[in-house]
């Protein structure tokens, strides 16, 4: 732990000499950079997906949770009476904030997209709709359904939960998948850097032996490798993140009718999240290399 802290401080300070003791390796360096960039690019998308799914689940939950509908189908003569009974019953139900029968004009507006503007609603056996707004605590839908059944035979309660719940569940699952992907990407970065660091440590066995011989501590030797891989992961991930954000920005803008895909951007403070990708990749690389170096160096005489 102490050695890790020292390494961390030294990393911040920078040490030209310690950097030079390990020979430069062009090809593997570029591979590490590329892999870090690709992983960061994917991570940006996984995060965008998670955050969009979370946003969707919240907004669907908010919008739909509050509104339910009671639909009354009754013969012409009983329509007004049953509507009045249902309204009274609803107003007495705990958890219902307000209940309001939709006017003819409102019902016509609802039907317009399907039947055109000239539909004479009044002359058709269209059911009467009552819009029910819940208090935040909500009501008990099963209890309300039973009471409606007893007093208003033609009433059907549609609390939207039936189709809302699976959608919200799907959105939550999607968010979870996004976070899981981001975690797996981080783990992959760790695995990749560990492999690369092990290869570098093995390839530089002579360098390590010489450094030990002239009195270098393990912390000094480890630092040369840790610094190198941390900087590679940082710069690779920075490039990948920039590309990823660019790609997200190129998604078509979300309009009024925001569908799921067009909503796949970052909003507000969420823009901070992709910016965390490069430092996190660097942190993962730092830990992975430090652990690999400690293991390899500890096994030497």
């Amino acid at each position, binding site marked *: 732990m102490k050695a890790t802290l020292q390494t961390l401080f030294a990393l911040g300070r920078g040490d030209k000499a310690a950097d030079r003791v390990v*020979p430069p390796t062009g090809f593997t360096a570029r591979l590490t950079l590329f892999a870090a960039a690709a992983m960061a690019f994917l991570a940006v998308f996984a995060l965008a997906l998670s955050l969009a799914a979370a946003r969707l689940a919240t907004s669907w939950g908010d919008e739909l949770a509050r509104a339910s509908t009671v639909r009354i189908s009754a013969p012409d003569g009983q329509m007004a009476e049953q509507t009045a009974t249902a309204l009274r019953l609803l107003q007495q139900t705990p958890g219902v904030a307000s209940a309001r029968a939709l006017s003819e004009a409102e019902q016509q507006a609802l039907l317009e997209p399907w039947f055109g503007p000239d539909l004479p609603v009044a002359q058709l056996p269209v059911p009467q709709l009552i819009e029910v707004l819940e208090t935040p605590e909500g009501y008990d839908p099963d209890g309300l359904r039973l009471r409606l059944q007893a007093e208003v035979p033609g009433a059907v309660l549609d609390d939207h939960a039936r189709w809302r719940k699976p959608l919200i569940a799907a959105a939550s699952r999607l968010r979870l998948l996004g976070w899981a992907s981001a975690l797996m990407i981080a783990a992959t970065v760790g695995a990749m850097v560990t492999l690369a660091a092990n290869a570098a440590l093995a390839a530089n066995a002579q360098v390590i032996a010489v*450094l*030990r011989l002239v009195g270098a501590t393990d912390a000094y030797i480890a630092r040369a490798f840790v610094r190198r891989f941390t900087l590679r992961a940082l710069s690779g991930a920075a490039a990948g993140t920039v590309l990823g954000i660019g790609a997200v920005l190129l998604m078509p803008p979300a309009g009024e009718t925001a569908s799921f895909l067009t909503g796949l951007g970052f909003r507000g403070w969420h823009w901070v999240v992709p910016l965390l990708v490069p430092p996190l990749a660097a942190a993962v690389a730092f830990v992975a290399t430090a652990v690999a170096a400690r293991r390899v160096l500890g096994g030497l005489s």
Partner: protein
Amino acid sequence: MGKAHFPGAARIAYAARLMHNRPSFSGDGTGVIELDNVAYSYGGGELLSELSLQLAPGSFHFLTGPSGAGKTTLLKLCYGALRPTAGVARLFGQDVRQMDRDDIAMSRRRIGVVHQDCQFLDHLSVAENVALPMAVAGQAMPEQDDNLRELMAWVGLTERAGALPPELSGGERQRAALARAVIMSPEVVLADEPTGNVDWEMSQRLLRLLIELNRMGVTVLIATHDLQLIRAAKSQVQARVLRIANRRLNAAGVDL
């Protein structure tokens, strides 16, 4: 090439640093490096047994014995690269068993080692390699450049300072290794076959460099099977000769 003199300024600086280093030695015995009844085995039978050795400050020792007798192994025990399988090894009074890897690394800064197969960082210049012990110790002294230049002149490598180690001849490598071993002004220099790859003339030169260090108070231990070299040294310095035979360490016979 016949003359080798440790340059004046560097010599004084070296001696001063050596005096400065001395008080930190707090051995309870009498040697800077002590092996007490030590045994070592690489896993099979014992290679060395019941071996005791004391390197008194400022002493000059030769270590000899047939190839494979364990000279390199013994040197490694002396700088903590190997830990004895039995007995006690002490570096500057500290029991090796109680030293962790960092303690060993720190003790390397007081013990200059010339390996039998001199290894360098092949991507750095000879001068950078010679200065490497200072770099890893975090010491970038202002006078380092002068010191380094004089040291390079002392081992006759001024012309080759910018070359890469793979471009050096065997003798040049050994001189570079010697320069690297002494740049930290160590109290002890352990040299394993320092004249292995060089002709008689060059081996005399390297020997004089080591003798000169010894005159400044540096403890020197040289492993070699070059008996001629030992004879040549004995005329210039009071050297003790140790021989490894039958896994034990003995004072060498009268043949020298």
